[in-house]
């Protein structure tokens, strides 16, 4: 489809949605004159069908995992339509969070039951779901650490957060936004920071440690127990960012490793759809000792009834309004129930086996190089790779590959979070969803593009060639004179050209 922008569609007076006139008995009311709107907002005027058709076209112009996606760090899963359908029912969709808890027993029961499931998976004592994503859960940790240290009267001294340079950007970013100074530990050749570096970083100023394990290279830090021991010895709180939980679920318990708190991304590991960037949930769990600081309310069970406990005087306050993206929690609960303990264990097995199978096959493609090649162990559930050698040889890099993959119906791969530790990185992750056929197809496409990089590099560098649009020219994105975040801005900056081309509003 050559689909115009919606502002170009329609005709004056067309309607997509009518509202009833106020009943005669209601009388006519008006906004105070000073605040009345006088202009007519420049919105499209279209029929219901035209709106539907337009957005159906846009959905069809979105690849959206209709092919194969091995998007690393995000753990592509099947998103159950059964769970989705349940959450669309009025019994959840049309529920208000301020209803009396007596009328919320169903949803509170699910939240509580899921809390109990996560407690078992992590060893923690209480979970909350207020955070709107993984990053927000990290922020919850930082805010909780503030409340914890403030409660002890030490917030003025405990000003630093320690993490590794390979940790997800959200850890340092949220800690910084929460007011902490970030201490980044560099990586050693073995793929993780040294204990010496950790010891040097940790001390009486350390408020908390935020760390993931394994990392996105697929490397597991075997010294993590010692890390936690050292950090706690220094009085710091220890937070396990369980972004990469898929490979270790059922194998590890955050609490047994000594952590005080952890978070799970329900929209990744627990099969709720991420929906192209949320609504998401960062489930945050902690020990009994930290529970008083959790954001309120907390769902508790008392005498067979479920309650929202809002009376938490030491609470950090709120991270976000209400109690979280409830439908996503329900979907994650559904995932955990559908999988069961055996299924979860098997999923972890499969995801690590499949990743190592991919490593084997990718290693056979000339020009690709695994990160930390000196490490010969089997990797965890994903592995960072580099196109460095191929890029040096051909000039074709990871962005070019990503663009070209779409031509094969393959969602672009994930490259790497910042900073790029290896050159021209990419990070595939199989998870437990995909079949061998899918994985082989994916690897075949990578091999094919690698061949093209040598034989017809321009083909790759100018990709995509069969997507809805040609390669986007990103030069405008940092140019205040050229960027246009709304149609208004575009009209102003580009004059009438766009409008005229499509026939006008």
């Amino acid at each position, binding site marked *: 489809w050559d689909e115009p*922008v919606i502002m170009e569609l329609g005709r004056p007076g067309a309607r*997509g949605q009518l509202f009833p006139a106020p*009943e005669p008995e209601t009388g006519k*009311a008006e906004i*105070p004159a000073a605040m009345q*709107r006088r*202009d007519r*907002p*420049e919105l499209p*005027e279209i029929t*219901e069908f035209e709106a539907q058709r337009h957005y159906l076209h846009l959905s069809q112009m*979105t*690849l959206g*995992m209709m092919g194969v996606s091995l*998007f690393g760090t*995000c753990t592509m899963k099947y998103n*159950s339509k059964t769970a989705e359908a349940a959450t669309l*029912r*009025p*019994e959840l969709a049309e*529920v208000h*969070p301020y209803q*009396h808890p*007596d*009328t919320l027993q169903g949803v509170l029961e699910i939240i509580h039951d899921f809390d109990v499931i996560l407690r078992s998976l992590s060893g923690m004592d209480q979970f909350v779901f207020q955070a*709107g994503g993984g990053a927000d859960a990290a922020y919850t940790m930082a805010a909780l650490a*503030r409340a914890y240290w403030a409660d002890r009267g030490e917030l003025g001294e405990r000003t630093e957060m320690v993490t590794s340079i390979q940790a997800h950007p959200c850890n340092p970013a949220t800690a910084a936004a929460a*007011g902490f100074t970030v201490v980044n530990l560099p990586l050693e050749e073995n793929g993780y920071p040294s204990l010496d570096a950790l010891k040097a970083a940790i001390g009486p100023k350390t408020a908390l440690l935020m760390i993931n394990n394994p990392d996105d290279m697929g490397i597991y830090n075997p010294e993590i127990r010692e890390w936690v021991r050292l950090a706690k010895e220094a009085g710091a709180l220890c937070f396990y960012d369980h972004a990469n939980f898929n490979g270790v679920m*059922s194998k*590890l318990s955050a609490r047994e490793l000594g952590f005080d708190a952890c978070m799970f991304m329900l*929209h990744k590991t627990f099969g709720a*759809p*991420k*929906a192209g*960037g949320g*609504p998401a949930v960062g489930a945050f769990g902690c020990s009994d000792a930290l529970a008083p600081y959790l954001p309120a309310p907390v769902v508790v069970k008392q005498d067979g009834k479920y309650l929202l406990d809002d009376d938490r005087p030491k609470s950090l306050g*709120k991270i976000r*309004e209400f109690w979280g*993206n409830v439908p996503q929690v329900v979907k994650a609960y559904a995932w955990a*129930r*559908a999988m*069961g303990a*055996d*299924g979860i264990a098997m999923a972890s097995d*499969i995801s690590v086996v499949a990743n190592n199978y991919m490593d084997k096959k990718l290693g056979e493609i000339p020009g690709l190089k695994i990160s930390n090649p000196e490490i010969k162990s*089997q990797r*965890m559930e994903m592995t960072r790779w580099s196109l460095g050698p191929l890029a040096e040889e051909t000039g074709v890099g990871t962005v070019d590959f*990503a663009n070209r993959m*779409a031509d094969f119906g393959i969602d672009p791969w994930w490259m790497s979070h910042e900073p790029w530790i290896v050159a021209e990185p990419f990070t595939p992750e199989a998870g437990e969803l995909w*079949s*061998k056929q899918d994985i082989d197809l994916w690897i075949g496409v990578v091999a094919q593009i690698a061949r093209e990089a040598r034989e017809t590099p321009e083909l790759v560098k100018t990709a995509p060639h069969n997507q809805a*649009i040609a390669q*986007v020219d990103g030069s405008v*994105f*940092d140019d*205040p004179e050229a*960027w246009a*975040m709304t*149609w208004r801005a575009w009209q102003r900056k580009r004059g009438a050209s*766009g409008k005229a081309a499509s026939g006008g509003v």
Partner: protein
Amino acid sequence: MTIEQRAHPWMALSAPGALQQMLDEIGVKDVAAVFEQIPADHYRKTPLDLPPALNSEIELKRDLVSKLRKNGDCETNLSFLGAGVWQHHVPAIVDEIVGRTEFATNVWGSYQSDHGRNQAWFEFSSQLGALLNLDVVQLPVYSWGCAIGHAIRMAARLTGRRKVLLPVLADPERLSVIRTYCQPSEMEDHIEVVTIATDPTSGRLSIADLKSKLGPDVAAVYFENPAYLGTIETGAAEIAGLARAAGAETIVGVDPLSLGVMMAPGDYGADIVTGPVQPLGVHMNCGGGVGGFIASRDEARYVHEYNGFLVSIAPTAEPGQIGFGLASSHQNSYGSREHGKDWTGNSTYLWAIAGAVYMSLLGPDGFREIGDLILSRARYAARLIGEVPGVKIVWPDTTFKEFIVNFDDTGKTVDAVNEALRARGIFGGKDISTEGHGLGQAALYCVTEVHSAADIRRLADALKEVCQ
């Protein structure tokens, strides 16, 4: 490391023999071998203790549905709850589009693979910009409270000042989020939150108090229009003018559904505008439908302070063709880690698509109609409720969709009234008696386009019974 008897429908490699085939290719003897990196003493000792698996869809559905049916809901009951989540009509097309698997999927692709989604996002910003009369609209953050929090921090960075003024009659829910964003007072970068008094005759901001508190240390003035308790801030332009004169940013919070009948904030001097996304076609979802937008004028100094995703139109390799991508993305936390502007991550972008569809369905006339309708019905409701003996409307005729009902003269608590209403299938307004606003036994009632005049009479009749 258990092997199930039957393949699981969500795991292709759980089919018999499939995993072994891969192990053979890798050349390791068993599954344990691929976990060689994990030291033996790291393995959990406590066995997993999960409820029995519901492998079959039929059991899973039954479990979910039978539990959810224990809820009461606002379709079966007549609800007047608002205050941050509001019951509005969600057009069926919106549900269809956001439910399309292409959109409701795990994947977040590229500008190239997901052109359609990027365009829908741009259309969200474009249409909201048309309502706000502003040129820059960011994709939504987690919630309205979070949007305000980010906006205040933007203002602090823009001005280098560390104080924000906001109305004392603030939503405690949003205020608590704002305080979280402003950091505790022990911290170096703490932003002080100072409240502005209310004009007791109208519920509006006290201009005198505002003037007394504005000074060279104020980063921003924040107010809502309509405000938390429903009142319309007619002095908006004056407030913005005072703030500007003091070198402070004016941050406004608006209900997008009011903008067909209420002046666009871009037209009364707002610098940064925030608001909730949920009214634009998202179900209440037990509070899980929230999202918050941030918008501003198209000036680089503002654009360079946004924390999240700004979708810009861009040319493609094909002459005349346009595509979409993220503008100024280096400044977010993906690009700059702790040096970025606050932080971002997965947010509520599906609701941007809902909002795009919703706004396109309404168009200019629809927004005017829904605004008129809500206003008329809310005022009608206030009038009828105000006629119930002992019941008073605080600040009548100054509101949009929410208004305060005081029960002091009935001798009943809001809690008791609401319990009696609940027995009649009605969810009364939010109890605000304990929020410290000095409004007595008061509830915040919300009336929208879903409430017919007959519904409102049903409420009024029930209140008459209940308050006798």
